[in-house]
């Protein structure tokens, strides 16, 4: 809400600097976001042109004799729109005004010129007649010298006459305070804050004797609660006086004509939205408030024909819809500069209905912004009076008032226990202090142990005791409440989901991975980048129904595309190798494969493992890492980088599980089909890893040696288990390397599993360190190099014992896989 301080001063004696006013309002919850100074050049007075003669030496110049009160000035002007008798603003010698035509003078940025005593073509000039732009006034005024009303007092300061000046406040009015979407409401709060008197608006009743020729009716009480109507005849419309134009300009509204300006003026001053009809253009007996029927249309004031959803609140006359109720008027019966007879509508609509219609139509008008907050039933009468006064000033003769619908009830009261107030605030105010504090904003209260608080009609937001608590706090100031230290009571809330993610992130950082954070809301570009590879994007996505842009179409089904996009950017900028990771939730529809696989394990409503399947969406926490290396270090058999990345994945898993898990070969569509695997833990997949599909790597301009892994956090332990100590070795052991030749389809894991299961008492561990394929081995075969560690618990192992153990293992491998030692 833009509030000109000069307007506030109509209701409150606020003779303090703008900064103070802003601080007072802000401290009361009406945050002043900005103080906009109005450029008001000084030493401008009202002058009356007494004589105007041709300049002796210049055809286009005139020489005026101007009465500025204490003297008469000779002023030369080039303006064509002035005549003797006009009253105009005069910049006295020494005044600084804006240069004419200076484009943004109204914003205060124009070029400045200073008026000097001068001679123009030999004739002395002692001042200047000013145009609107020279005074930084808005564009609604005509070009040429500003002609003022005849009633303007000669010699008076121009800005005082214009009732303009002072700064504007940009006030952030909270959603529960529609009363403060008005000058009156803000002035009330300001008066309380400044501890000065507050001037109640004293609009005369403005009611005539003659019945209104047009009536009002509420056909649907679920749309409209009260409807006031009144007819004014004999109006002189035309342009608004300067003060009104300037006030509206300061409040951010463009002046159109007096009648339209009056309705805007009243809305800003009182918060009551009004609608004016040209009475001669209303068909039938008057207007009716009802819900739109299917297929009804209206052409709104902006000239757009709008089809109305069934149920939209509308105002109709005998011929059909004449406006969207409280939101936007129709063009058919609108007032114009020619209107002489006017029908005033001062309504109270049901906020929720206005809000829904306004959102559906995409029309967020000032009227809608007020109506949707459920204005009080008393307000239509206040708004009507404010308008009647201004319409009568333009010659309007008022009819009697027509008034239907609910009537305001008796003032409400709320019981508030001072003890409760103190208990919530941590204060020790007395009941008297509380009463005194809330009185200036109109809350009268009485009583001791329980205060009976009478709620003024404009405070519809106050409904219960807690609201009074807030009023007391606001009135006495939040600053006065003493700070106290706050510590939690003992509790047993499960924090493991958060801890799990933190532990993993720390481990990955230790391993050289840099964490990135990407947008979880994705769109066309993410899909297009991915599909450049020729690989399909995830087919089933969780879509957004109301995106603002193409890049907000769905929530990510995987972290991989986001991390790849960043990896592509880093690869060009940072030295190899590159390691990145991201953690975050990912989303699939409940009918996707992933959700189906997991659905059995999940009880809706609970998420002990961090995965959620409520709301038609499967959502779970994920972690994705990408590693890229300059050169592929892979031959026919071994991909060294793949094993390095696998080792990193195992380190991460060990962080939480205390064990690296089991690896199996497992293809994924986005990995190289021969270089991808799963890691399982107690039968559950906890990670997948692999070399990126070469087409995917190329699509993101990443090297062929690019790898990725994804952790299934929901299957990983949340915190590391407490493991028992295994006895430390007391005697030296020995290691034996052997290379065995087996069929290509036998995996290293198979061989190691067999070695473990061979039943050798001195067996300690086995690992695999190389693989070879080639002509010496033969087609369809490969040689795998294993290291077997052997140790005895009760003495140093001898060569003979080690050899014996190894023979048993080799025999087991031969039996199971037809393995033989490589020559």
């Amino acid at each position: 809400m833009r509030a000109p301080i000069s307007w506030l001063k109509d209701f409150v004696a606020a003779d303090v600097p703008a900064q103070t006013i802003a601080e007072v309002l802000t401290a009361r919850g009406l945050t002043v976001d900005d103080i906009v100074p109005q450029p008001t050049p000084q030493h401008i007075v009202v002058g009356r042109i007494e004589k105007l003669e041709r300049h002796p030496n210049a055809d286009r110049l005139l020489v005026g004799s101007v009465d500025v009160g204490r003297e008469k000035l000779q002023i030369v002007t080039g303006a064509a729109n002035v005549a003797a008798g006009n009253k105009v603003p005069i910049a006295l010698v020494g005044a600084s005004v804006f240069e004419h035509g200076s484009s943004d003078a109204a914003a205060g940025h124009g070029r400045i010129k200073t008026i000097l005593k001068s001679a123009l073509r030999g004739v002395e000039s002692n001042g200047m007649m000013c145009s609107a732009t020279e005074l930084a006034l808005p564009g609604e005024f005509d070009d040429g010298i500003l002609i003022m009303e005849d009633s303007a007092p000669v010699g008076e300061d121009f800005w005082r006459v214009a009732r303009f000046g002072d700064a504007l406040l940009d006030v952030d009015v909270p959603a529960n305070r529609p009363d403060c979407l008005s000058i009156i409401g803000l002035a009330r709060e300001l008066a309380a804050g400044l501890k000065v008197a507050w001037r109640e608006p004293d609009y005369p009743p403005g009611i005539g004797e003659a019945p209104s020729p047009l009536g009002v009716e509420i056909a649907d009480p679920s749309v409209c609660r009260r409807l006031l109507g009144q007819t004014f005849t004999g109006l002189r419309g035309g342009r608004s006086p300067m003060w009104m134009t300037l006030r509206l300009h300061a409040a951010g509204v463009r002046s159109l004509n007096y009648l339209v300006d009056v309705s805007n003026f009243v809305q800003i001053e009182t918060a009551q939205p009004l609608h004016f009809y040209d009475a001669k253009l209303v068909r039938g007996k008057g207007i009716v408030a009802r819900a739109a029927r299917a297929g009804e249309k209206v052409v709104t004031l902006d000239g757009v024909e709008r089809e109305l959803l069934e149920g939209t609140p509308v105002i109709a006359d005998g011929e059909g819809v004449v406006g969207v109720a409280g939101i936007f008027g129709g063009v058919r019966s609108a007032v114009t500069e020619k209107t002489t007879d006017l029908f005033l509508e001062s309504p109270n609509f049901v906020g929720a209905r206005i809000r829904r219609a306004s959102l559906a139509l995409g029309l967020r008008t000032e009227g809608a912004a007020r109506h949707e907050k459920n204005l009080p039933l008393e307000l239509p009468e206040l708004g009507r009076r404010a308008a009647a006064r201004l319409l009568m000033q333009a010659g309007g003769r008022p009819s009697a008032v027509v008034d239907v619908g609910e009537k305001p009830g008796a003032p409400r009261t709320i019981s508030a226990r001072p003890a409760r107030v103190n208990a919530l605030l941590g204060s020790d105010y007395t009941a008297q202090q509380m009463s005194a504090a809330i009185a200036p904003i109109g809350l009268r209260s009485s009583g001791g142990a329980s205060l009976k608080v009478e709620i003024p009609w404009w405070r519809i937001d106050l409904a219960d005791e807690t609201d009074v608590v807030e009023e007391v706090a606001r009135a006495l100031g939040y600053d006065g409440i003493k700070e106290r230290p706050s510590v939690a009571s003992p509790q047993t809330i499960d924090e493991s989901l958060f801890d799990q993610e933190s532990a993993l992130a720390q481990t990955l950082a230790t391993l050289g991975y840099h964490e990135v954070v990407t947008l979880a809301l994705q769109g066309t570009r993410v899909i297009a980048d991915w599909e450049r590879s020729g690989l399909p994007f995830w087919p089933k996505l969780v879509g957004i129904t109301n995106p603002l842009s193409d890049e907000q179409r769905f929530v990510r089904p995987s972290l991989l595309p986001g991390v790849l996009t960043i990896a592509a950017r880093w690869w060009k900028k940072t030295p190899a190798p590159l390691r990145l990771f991201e953690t975050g939730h990912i989303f699939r529809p409940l009918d996707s494969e992933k959700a189906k696989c997991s659905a059995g394990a999940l009880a809706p409503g609970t998420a002990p493992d961090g995965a959620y399947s409520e709301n038609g969406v499967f959502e779970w926490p994920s972690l994705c890492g990408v590693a890229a290396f300059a050169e592929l270090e892979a031959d026919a058999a071994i991909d060294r980088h793949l094993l390095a990345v696998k080792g990193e994945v195992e380190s991460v898993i060990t962080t939480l599980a205390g064990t690296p898990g089991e690896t199996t070969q497992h293809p994924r569509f986005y990995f190289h089909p021969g270089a991808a695997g799963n890691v399982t833990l107690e039968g559950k997949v906890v990670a997948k890893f692999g070399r990126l599909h070469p087409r995917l790597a190329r699509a993101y301009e990443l090297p062929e040696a690019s790898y990725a892994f994804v952790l299934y956090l929901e299957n990983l332990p949340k915190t590391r288990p407490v493991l028992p100590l295994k006895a430390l070795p007391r005697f030296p052991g020995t290691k034996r390397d052997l290379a065995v030749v087996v069929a290509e389809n036998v995996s290293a894991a198979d061989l190691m599993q067999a070695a473990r299961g061979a039943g050798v008492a001195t067996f300690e561990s086995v690992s695999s360190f190389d693989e070879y394929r080639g002509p010496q081995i033969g087609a369809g075969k490969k040689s795998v190099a294993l290291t077997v560690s052997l140790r005895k618990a009760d003495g140093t192992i001898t060569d003979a014992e080690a050899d014996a153990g190894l023979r048993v293992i080799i025999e087991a491998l031969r039996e199971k896989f037809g393995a033989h030692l490589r020559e």
Partner: protein
Amino acid sequence: MSDQLQQLENEVIARAAAVTSLDDLEALRTEVLGRKGGRLSLVMAGLAKMPPAERAAFGRLANDAKSRIESALADARSRLENAAVEGSLARTYDVTLTAGPPRTGSVHILRRTLDDVVAFFRSRGFAIVTGPEVETEYYNFEALNIPADHPAREGLDTFYLDPGTLLRAHTSPVQMRTMEAYPPPIAILAPGKCYRRDSLDARHSFQFHQIEGLQVDRGITFGHLKGFVSDLCRHLYGENRRTRFRPSYFPFTEPSAEVDVSCGVCDGNGCRTCGGSGWLEMGGSGMVHPNVLRMAKYDPEIFTGWAFGLGVERIAMVRHGIDDIRLFVENDPAFLEQFA
């Protein structure tokens, strides 16, 4: 025999004193003391042929000679090793040359910031809890005292998946989920991603991270809220920063307060960073609305509480003087490395 022995001893002692490398010394040792074919053992081999009466005397002589040889060799070894150490000590290395590349990775500045917040809350006994990002209207709005058609929904402009399902606009839904799961008293911090329909520019993002603190207990007052949040702001921004509580409106708290912290650039005097006001907006807070407590089946006459919500991006921006929120999701290495 004894002459031979004496000669060998003299020769070895002389050569040991002259030897210049550990390799030569080892060769000398093998030549003289080697088990098979060492010169000393050759001399000793003569012992067998000696008359038994002389053997004992010569044996003593030989052993003495051997130990003098060994000690000469040992002296030579320590002389050479010392010389080597002295030699290496004479070298100077320029430690100001550029170090090798860092071996560790890094966590994102948002996590680093959040960890700092978490450390504070944990020091006060708060539990860290999370929840889903896809939410129901109930948890995002109704349970927070924002019924349908409430104008406050305007400020929480929300992405919908379908009617009734949405992307949470704040982490406040975790409040209700936690209160439903645990009886009072509770004290929690709920961090996580939130989404609001907005464009992406220097000051706005449709995705951000929020933290929400909530404490519900017996006797919790607005004074506790002020104390906790002021302490948090001092923890995050420095001991000399002041905190301001401005009345505000949120349907789920009452009284509600907007929290500002004094501008660190101008110390509250007003500058470009704070738009001249001297204050920087931090987030919203307030006493939990009784309606919210009732919906969680907590008795508002017995339990009261405060809640406080704040953007992690906002904290990081204020702490580090970051003026563009997009930097957090652009992940430019030049940006992230500064906070690694």
